């Protein structure tokens, strides 16, 4: 029982969910208060995680729940992103009239599910975490229930996600059938020989996971859900589920299936190339910024997968670095999106940015930095993210993947440049509001500064990540 202290953060969040639910029901008009309390409890959870001993490496509950350096780092990343998402979107949910007590509580539920996913070392625990986060996300996607697009996106996400969960579960059952266990470590021991059923199981699981991080060809839901959901939910979609899904990807590929590298490597390479190229090409024609960033994130996930496909520790570390920098860039991008507000209405089309630089020089500068960074132009953080990936990929002599990936960055550069062109070269439009709440401003300034100043000390994050132990 003394091991229970290792899951104090999870327990704390569960208790906060129940407490806030009851509190919100009994206290009238408390939506804003609950929202703030949620943010505070996330900060507290972050403190609890950091407070756990860093080097600890242990598993609980009959080796089905893992507390290791990977879980620790990913959870810190997760909760930090959660806090910044909450900070930046508080004003948005008030103005969009979706400020209800359920909203922050659902976010907490989803985060709890992701934490379970990140730590899971067992098929059943993993599936439980996955469903907890997904069910909360279905509701969040359609939270603006009077809006047709929002309900559509919720329903679409639900149907497709349920399908993929079904595939995933089927894969899990196949794996169980052929390895006689659900524990990750045990699966590795029991699956020395390759059997067809096992390969099918791996494929089904990878399909399910690819759906969660919206890798091509399982990306269909992403653009619609990104566009239809309230922006505050879109930013959540763009950041947090990616962290959890990528961690699970790492765990599956590098613990139970590590020995079966030949079986999954081609699949991951295909997913990676397809995502990089398709994401870059499809984004060119987009008019809506949220839809565009959906395609852009598909493309970015392709790069993260490219790191995983190497099958080396270095590759995994480069993927984790990539996702870290990706989170910051997307956070900055969405913070800019939250600032495009005029008369209590948010604007999200690319044309609305026309001539932004004349009226809002600082906001435009941040967008400029973010977009060039997303395009991977040095010396911004986005370049280093790609750089680490390609270092890992080329080390494995996978030149084809590297060259395709780099050519995709050139294609992708085109649509990022198009936005910059609209901001800087086009005639100006009406001004947006220039007053924003402190949390949003802080998020934008902090993330932009990170992107801009990353090159001064690039070793910082890499050093932390290089201490993560995979096996």
């Amino acid at each position, binding site marked *: 029982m003394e091991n229970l202290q290792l899951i104090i953060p999870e327990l704390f969040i569960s208790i906060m969910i129940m407490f806030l639910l009851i509190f919100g029901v009994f206290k009238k008009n408390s939506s804003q208060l609950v929202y703030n309390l949620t943010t505070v409890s996330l900060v507290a959870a972050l403190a609890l995680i950091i407070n756990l001993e860093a080097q600890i490496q242990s598993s609980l509950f009959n080796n089905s729940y893992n507390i290791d350096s990977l879980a620790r780092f990913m959870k810190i990343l997760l909760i930090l992103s959660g806090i910044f998402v909450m900070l930046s979107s508080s004003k948005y949910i008030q103005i969009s009239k979706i400020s209800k007590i359920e909203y922050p509580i659902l976010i907490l539920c989803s985060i709890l599910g992701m934490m379970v996913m990140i730590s899971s070392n067992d098929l059943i625990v993993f599936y439980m975490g996955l469903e907890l986060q997904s069910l909360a996300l279905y509701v969040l996607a359609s939270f603006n229930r009077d809006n047709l697009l929002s309900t559509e996106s919720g329903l679409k996400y639900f149907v497709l996600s349920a399908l993929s969960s079904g595939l995933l579960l089927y894969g899990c059952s196949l794996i169980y059938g052929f390895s006689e266990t659900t524990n990750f470590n045990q699966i590795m021991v029991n699956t020395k020989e390759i059997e067809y059923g096992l390969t099918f199981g791996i494929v089904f699981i990878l399909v399910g996971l690819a759906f969660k991080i919206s890798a091509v060809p399982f990306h269909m839901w992403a653009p619609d859900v990104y566009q239809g959901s309230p922006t505050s939910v879109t930013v959540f979609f763009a950041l947090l589920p990616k962290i959890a899904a990528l961690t699970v990807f790492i765990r599956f590929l590098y613990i139970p299936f590590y020995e079966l590298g030949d079986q999954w490597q081609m699949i991951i390479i295909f997913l990676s190339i397809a995502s990089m190229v398709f994401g870059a090409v499809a984004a060119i024609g987009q008019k809506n910024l949220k839809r565009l960033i959906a395609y852009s994130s598909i493309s970015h996930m392709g790069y993260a997968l490219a790191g995983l496909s190497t099958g080396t520790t270095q590759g995994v570390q480069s993927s984790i670095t990539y996702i870290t920098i990706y989170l910051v860039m997307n956070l900055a991008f969405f913070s800019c999106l939250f600032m495009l507000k005029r008369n209590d209405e948010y604007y999200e089309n690319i044309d609305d940015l026309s001539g932004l630089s004349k009226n809002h020089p600082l906001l435009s500068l941040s967008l400029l930095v973010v977009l060039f960074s997303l395009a991977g132009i*040095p010396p911004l953080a986005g370049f280093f993210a790609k750089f680490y990936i390609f270092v890992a990929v080329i080390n494995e002599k996978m030149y084809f993947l590297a060259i395709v990936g780099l050519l995709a960055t050139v294609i992708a550069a085109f649509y990022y440049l198009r936005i910059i*062109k609209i901001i800087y070269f086009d005639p100006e439009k009406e001004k947006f509001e220039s007053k924003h709440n402190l949390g949003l401003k802080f998020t934008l300034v902090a993330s932009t500064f990170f992107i801009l100043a990353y090159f001064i000390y690039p*070793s910082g994050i890499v050093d932390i990540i290089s201490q993560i132990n995979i096996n």
Partner: protein
Amino acid sequence: MNFPILSSLILLPTIGALFIFFVRSSNSQYQSSKYVALFITLANFFLSLYLWIVFDKSIVDFQFVEEREWISGFVNYKVGVDGISILFILLTTFITPICVITVNATIKNRLKDFLIAILILETFMIGVFCSLDLVVFYLFFEAGLIPMFLIIGIWGGERRVYSAFKFFLYTLLGSVLMLVAIISIYWITGTTDVIKLYELGIDAKYQNLLWLAFFSSFAVKTPMWPVHTWLPDAHVEAPTAGSVLLAAILLKMAGYGFIRFSLGLFPDASLYFVPLVYTLSLIAIIYTSLVALMQEDMKKLIAYSSVAHMGFVTLGIFTMTQQGIEGSIFQMISHGLVSAALFLCVGVVYDRLHTRLINRYGGLVSIMPKYAIVFMVFTLGALGLPGTSGFIGEFLVLMGAFKKNILVATIASLGVILGAAYMLWLYKRIIFGKLINEDVKKMVDLKRFEIVTLWLLVLPIIFFGFYPEPLINSIEVSVANMIDMNDLDKINKLALGD
């Protein structure tokens, strides 16, 4: 030497840019930001001049080397100069203040942003010329795209968007393969440190592919035929200061890269690809000269002449002889001065008449005599008249080429004649002839700041034309060492069957 003089050179413009950025903007202070920029760039120029004076020209090693850990265990931030790179740094710091002076007339809106872009660009340009690590080089090389893209796109002419995109995407596409090559070099040799790589050498079996990857980047940037088409567009649409920086310095990055990396790291592959480079260079020299003859737009004409001149540069580098390489470097410096001056000259008349079409002008000699004089000097410099710096470069290149291949040298010499043809014809159509156009009569002669900037460029062009010794002195040892170290002579002899 503990004072990090090179890092100061790199950082100073950025600090200036930050200063301008944080000063509150109002119309009156636009002027002050210009003085800040001028002060910073001049300070940088004198700092680099000091660097040139204390630089020991008789030593082959890199000097003022600074090294710091950067990406831990992988890449070190390493800068240093030898006799070749110091000249390019000097050229950069000399041209940038001139660009800052010209903003007076050419930039009407967002002066502050423009100055910031120029200063940031200067940081990157100096960084390219003194980085001694491949990754650091790549970083600076690519980063320069951002400010240049904005300079063309925000302050450019009518088709600025098209040109800016073309410039950016062409260069980026060329460069990505270089990144693959750099990372591959790291995995082959275990370092990206240029000095160490010079010592280690790269296995000949990898060289050809790596050379091609670097070539794809430098060929676009040079630009060599057939990937030169972005240059005329970018030049035509960019504001005067942008054109000047593009022609004078950005193009030289590629020539510098050819010498430092293609020759230095892949000598065997360089030799292998000599016929390719000769062919492309000759096509560039002859074809683009002919194209230049047909141009009706002044800036386009000069842009095509730049391609032709850079053809001489690549030809000279790949003769792999002392004269050829020295000639190429000299040609690059000279072209940096001359083309900058020519674009400034175009800028002068464009500001007055707002057209770049050659046939709208004519007979300027009687209205703008001072302009006619300086323009004459630059025209002669561009066509390589003895007594101007252009002559020395072309002469040395051709000398190197004659040593290697008489046919190639003969064809290249034809380019000199064509160069004289289009430059003199341009001069004739603009400066002489009848004064028919009414608007032209109202044009005023050079203003004071224009006289200053243009004469600042006349002086070195003529000075180095008569006395090239300081420049040659500076590069001689480094070039000899480069040839010596890579046994280029020996390789040459083997190839020739001696």
